[in-house]
């Protein structure tokens, strides 16, 4: 037997390289995706199928079912939670849009004295964790008469979406050429006119990104929802599912997984598309 290596073609080399890379990626993919796969398959399994340890659990041993989803919508407040989640996020996105976009523009473009420090200060507030703020905020929420209503979350969530989105918008506005704005001013636009007619339209992708983040970051919260909203029909999904679907030691795993999947997956996918912007935003690399 001769073991002299056969000279490889470029193609063979590429195939070999790909196989090695895929082999390296497999454990990571498995770790990352398995819990989600497990969630998905559990959601469609019959109750009895969950508790048969004799069979291979990775696939259906009894026919798949939609019963878990039915239970969710007919016997729990899940429908309310979805509406609450979407309404809260929409309000938060609106508040964020109306505050963070102008602030980002002012800090990036208007050469305000101290703009740099104000920008950093606003960004640093994004890093003050909710766990330090939630007790004093519970007093604020109570004094506004909003305890036990999802409106409390509409008031509180902008505390983290505004800092992040202001920072993000600063980056976007810096990339718009100053000349465009100056041209608009020469053509007779006022300060506001230049912003609304020229700068905003070209920054639309940035504005959209901010809206998406306000939306998805609102759905990542658990602490505030847990602390401020007790009534079952007022909760958003990420709080309602773990607190209401688990009753004592009884776990309705099928419904819990169905509930988690139905909202978690769309959020994860949406966020996925904007993840690079998020990383750019926090590492400060925006607009460079």
């Amino acid at each position, binding site marked *: 037997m001769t073991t002299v290596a056969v000279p490889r073609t470029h193609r063979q080399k590429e195939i070999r390289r790909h196989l090695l890379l895929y082999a390296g990626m497999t454990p990571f993919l498995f770790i990352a995706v398995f819990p989600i796969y497990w969630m998905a398959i559990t959601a469609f399994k019959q109750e009895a199928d969950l508790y048969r340890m004799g069979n291979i659990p990775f696939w259906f041993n009894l026919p798949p079912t939609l019963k878990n989803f039915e239970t969710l919508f007919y016997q729990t407040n899940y429908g309310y939670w979805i509406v609450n989640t979407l309404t809260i996020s929409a309000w938060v996105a609106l508040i964020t849009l109306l505050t963070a976009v102008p602030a980002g523009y002012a800090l990036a473009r208007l050469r305000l*004295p101290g703009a740099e420090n104000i920008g950093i200060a606003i960004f640093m507030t994004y890093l003050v964790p909710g766990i330090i703020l939630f007790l004093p905020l519970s007093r604020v929420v109570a004094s506004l008469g909003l305890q036990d209503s999802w409106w409390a979350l509409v008031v509180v969530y902008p505390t983290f979406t505004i800092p992040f989105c202001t920072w993000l918008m600063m980056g976007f506005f810096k990339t718009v050429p100053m000349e465009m704005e100056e041209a608009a001013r020469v053509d007779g636009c006022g300060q506001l006119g230049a912003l609304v007619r020229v700068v905003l339209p070209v920054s639309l992708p940035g504005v959209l990104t901010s809206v998406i983040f306000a939306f998805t970051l609102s759905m990542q919260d658990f602490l505030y929802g847990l602390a401020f909203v007790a009534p079952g029909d007022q909760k958003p999904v990420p709080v309602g599912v773990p607190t209401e679907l688990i009753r004592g030691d009884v776990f309705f795993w099928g419904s819990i997984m169905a509930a988690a999947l139905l909202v978690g997956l769309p959020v994860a996918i949406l966020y996925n598309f904007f993840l690079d912007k998020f*990383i750019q935003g926090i590492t400060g690399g925006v607009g460079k």
Partner: protein
Amino acid sequence: MTVLPAGDGAESTTRAAAPPVARRSSAAAWWRTNTSRRLAFGYLLLAPAALYVALLVGVPFFFSLYLALSDANVGDPVATFVGLENFRAAWEMDTFWAALRNSVVFLVVAAVFKSLLGTSLAFLLLQNFKGKKLVRGLVVIPFTLPISVSVLSWKWMYDSQFSVINWGLHTAGLIGAYGSESWPIWLGQPHLALIACIGVNVWRSFPFSAIVLLAGFTSVPLEVLDAARVDGCSFFQRFRHVVTPMIFPILIIGFLFDTVFTLSDLSVVYLLTQGGPGSATQILPVLAYQIGIQAGSLGRGAAIALMLVPLLFPALFLMLRNLKRRDW
């Protein structure tokens, strides 16, 4: 305002002096200048965001200091000043020390695993291969999924009897049958429970570490690397002397972000174990919640939450220094 940059000041005075009409009232004249209008417009645009953040982050932060020094509780709105009583009480709680120790262990152990997994994944994702976009999209799902939702999936996987992890281990012959000595009850045994909680944190954040590293790597211009190669640098020399210094600022920010998140997150432990068994997985955020909201003792809860500040402060300080140094 004493910090007006010289340029702006000069501009406003020359402009104000130019039209003779403006001399009549200097205040009105100043108001008519472009600079003053720009500044007024700017601060007007900035005000809503700045006020929102000041009122709902700044004020509550200082209010929490006040709460920590008072005997405020949920039922009784009148709080009296009690000095450091809440901190002294926490100091004497065994649970507090357990929580502090677990928070630190959690942070350090999780950081080690996140760095290892994150770095290897980043190196793999740095290569070009077919299907890279799909792989990347799948591998970051743990980070993008709302955390309370993904913890539920783990709670089911850690089930005492129907754990799929145990099924796998049992089928591979590594552990005995359910009920036997070697059947791990993930959330019921002290050490295992802590490992289980740390595992979920690592699972959630290692894609974040990888993506941050990747952003760092790709920010190094290829020309610089080529130049170093031409000058005779080996792979490790290039990595040590060229890549590392260039990506360090990004790395530190990613690292600090993760530190803040890991230290202050309550959802993993709260949903998996509530700090149990005993106080084996008790951490400061969960303890602060249990005492501040569930037991209604706002003052004591605030004091415990503030104990996170000494742990967070170095991270925030480094972050601030890093941001300040950046050229704008």
